């Protein structure tokens, strides 16, 4: 079932796109993070122009974060005050990111920057996850209970502009969440990912937020940043393919409950280990493409109308 994507200007199998969306959904259901970080490289593999893949992916991220956000909001697990501080950085970061994206696209460097950023991102996340799941497996085998400190003092306690975040029960500097939002926003604009897989660990380990509020608060941040990226990409680079985004959304809506069910049946460390291996596989493939001599030295750049 071939479908012609009006903005990407390629004809591609609709079922394949639905399947990719479902994979992202399954990941979202299993790990509570949107599968954007795997979806964008996969879209590029199947022949979607990288700039269209990134921008349309941002549109898909909106849909996948809406449901998480509304569920967590109803349960009172969203720290809106923290969310707005993050967003202040996120909106600046993502707006800047979209303009950097457009600039790199005009230079003909965007494909390389996307590939290289993914290599760095995926290989570091994959390695971290692999180490973490291996440790969990070892600990479970040894039967040692997990022990965590009740309260820790991090870097955040030494910076100025301290704010009270009641929902998170924190009294920390606003500078660090602002910077975190900025970084995630830029990442979101250039790579089309929501950034939940970076943001949630950062909230827990860097800011010291209680785990329960991280999913809802990061969903809130991701939702607004992805909306900002979608509008800006649509205005400046005109690379948002709504047909592509809709197919991905449809697939992910079906995939999410499957992932949730899978997560309850399979052991957590094994699951994370499998995901880590997948991520490292994609990263290796991208590295090969950067290292191997290209089939031809000359490629076509942008059509300038």
């Amino acid at each position, binding site marked *: 079932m071939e*479908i012609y994507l009006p903005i990407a200007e390629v*004809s591609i199998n609709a079922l394949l796109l639905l399947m990719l969306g479902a994979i992202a959904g399954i990941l979202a259901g299993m790990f509570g993070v949107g599968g954007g970080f795997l979806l964008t490289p996969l879209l590029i593999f199947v022949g979607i122009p990288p700039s269209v893949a990134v921008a349309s992916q941002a549109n898909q991220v909106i849909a996948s974060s809406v449901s998480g956000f509304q569920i967590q909001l109803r349960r009172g697990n969203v720290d809106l005050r923290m969310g707005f501080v993050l967003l202040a950085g996120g909106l600046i970061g993502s707006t800047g990111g979209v303009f950097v994206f457009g600039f790199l696209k005009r230079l003909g460097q965007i494909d390389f920057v996307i590939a290289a950023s993914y290599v760095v991102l995926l290989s570091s996340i994959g390695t971290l996850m692999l180490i973490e799941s291996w440790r969990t497996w070892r600990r479970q085998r040894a039967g040692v209970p997990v022990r965590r400190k009740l309260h820790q003092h991090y870097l955040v306690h030494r910076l100025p502009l301290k704010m009270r975040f009641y929902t998170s029960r924190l009294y920390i500097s606003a500078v660090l969440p602002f910077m975190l939002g900025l970084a995630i926003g830029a990442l979101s604009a250039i790579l089309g990912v929501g950034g939940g897989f970076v943001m949630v660990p950062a909230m827990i380990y860097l800011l010291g937020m209680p785990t329960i509020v991280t999913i809802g608060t990061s969903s809130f941040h991701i939702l607004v940043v992805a909306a900002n990226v979608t509008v800006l990409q649509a205005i400046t680079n005109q690379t948002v393919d709504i047909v592509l985004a809709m197919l991905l959304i449809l697939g992910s*809506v079906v995939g999410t409950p499957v992932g949730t069910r899978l997560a309850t049946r399979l052991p957590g460390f094994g699951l994370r280990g499998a995901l880590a291996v997948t991520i490292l596989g994609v990263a290796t493939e991208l590295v090969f493409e950067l290292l191997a001599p*290209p089939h031809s030295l000359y490629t*076509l750049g942008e059509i300038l109308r």
Partner: protein
Amino acid sequence: MRRAGCLLVGIPLAALLAHAAAAQVERPLLVDLTRPNVRVNAAFHGAELTLFGTMDGPGDIVVVVVGPPQRQSVLRKERVMGLWVTGARQIFDNIPGFYAVAASAPLTRVLARGEVAGETILLDKRLQEVVPVGGGHRSATEMSAFREGLRAAKTRIGLFPVELARVAVQGERLFRVDLEFPSNLPTGTYEIRTYQVREGHITSTVTRPLTVAKTGFSARVYNFARNEGLLYGLFAIVVAVFAGWAGAAVTRRT
């Protein structure tokens, strides 16, 4: 009076017939397409058109399909610290969006005397009309490497097919050829030139336009995105929010 009337009608009629006969001699080549346009809609995955026509007597038929001229950049990959990155970039103007030649016999035989003066048939000659924008600092060999790279890249993605198809000729009168177009076809106005060639000379030419345009849903989405970027972006957000919310609501119930 009545006879005079007949005469008056008769003279122009004879003149008209003579004129028509002359036209017949001047334009011995008649060409038509099964469709005057290619519609790029949501189900588009390439197109096939049949060009057919008649000619007068022996000779070969050459059909040239030329896409709209484009301005495009060509990128060269360079190795920097072991990584292949995009290095130099050269813009060219007047690149044919698509170029294909079909003939009733091998082109080396039809055009045994080489390219006909004043006409552009072979891709090689058409590519000479492609002009670089800037890049005056480049050496001639570097520029020709970029040109060759452009040609190879367009061939790779199927927009410069090496040989399109063979023109079938019936009894030195009737001919037809199936023209195949890939799914990444650029939109715009194409020119399809049909030549009748006899002993290396063009005896007649017919040029027909072919419109390749997005239609229906694809065209609406494309124009919306092009002309109303802000509104399109907001629309995309609303659709995604609704889809995400509805999807979650449905899956929670089941």
